[in-house]
């Protein structure tokens, strides 16, 4: 399975891709929403996108709306991974079309549990 990780922090991209690769994902990275759309438009359409909220150029919410307006990307699962953790914001992200929401800080187990809920765990994971 493939995953696109979009976050303006390189350190955070490395943490998230590290967890996903450990679970068996093939990953690509992007530094903001626009770069993320470039990857998708280039034809690399993954099963999963993990996207931060606050980023320069194009934020995560705008990215989610852009993805949801393109029927070709309907099968993609979007998981917000962000330190934005107000109740109303989680509601907004879900309404825009995100499937799941992981609040920073998170542990590797949290990502794994969410992927299990979404049926996106590639292999039997171990502690």
């Amino acid at each position, binding site marked *: 399975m493939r995953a696109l990780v979009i976050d303006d922090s390189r*350190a955070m991209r490395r943490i998230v891709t590290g967890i996903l690769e450990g679970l068996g994902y093939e990953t690509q990275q992007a530094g903001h929403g626009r770069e993320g759309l470039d990857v998708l438009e280039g034809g690399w359409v993954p099963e999963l996108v993990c996207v931060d909220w606050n980023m320069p150029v194009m934020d995560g919410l705008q990215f989610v709306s852009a993805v949801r307006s393109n029927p070709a990307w309907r099968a993609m699962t979007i998981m917000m991974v962000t330190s934005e953790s107000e109740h109303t914001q989680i509601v907004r992200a879900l309404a825009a079309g995100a499937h799941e929401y992981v609040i920073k800080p998170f542990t590797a187990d949290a990502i794994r549990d969410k992927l299990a809920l979404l049926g996106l765990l590639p292999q039997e994971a171990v502690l």
Partner: protein
Amino acid sequence: MTTIDTGERRRGAESRPVITELIDGATIESIAQDAWIALVGEEEVLVPLPGEPVTDPVSSWVDVVGPWTGSVVLTTGRRTAEELTRALLQEHSPEVLEDEDVADAFGEIANVVGGNVKAALPGSSGLSLPDVGEAPAPRNPDDVCRVDLLWRGETVSISVQGALPALPAH
């Protein structure tokens, strides 16, 4: 008619809360502890003790704009910020850390702590992208909530500080 100034009158339209009415040090500390466990490492604890004053300080911060407006500022020594960066990057850590690497990682820690501080405040607020460098000075000494913590024996302080000067007293 005699009026007694209880402070109630100042809570009207032109008044605004100071941070100490909205959050306490224990909450900030527990937010930081969670961030450290998740980002820095499972065994990485922050000890709530003041340490040696920081020499060669570097700060990272995010701004919060809403019913309360100010910044969440993390400050530590440059060496400690580098050590934090290495802990975050683990095996991806380059041989020689560039300023950019430290700004990125230390800034992300401010983002995570700041986002959770913001969510613990009442109402809805906006959050800026992180900034790294010399910390903005507090504008109002009454509008600051600060915790001093030790990580691997080095001081890390977190200051949640208002961006606006004190309102003139009536």
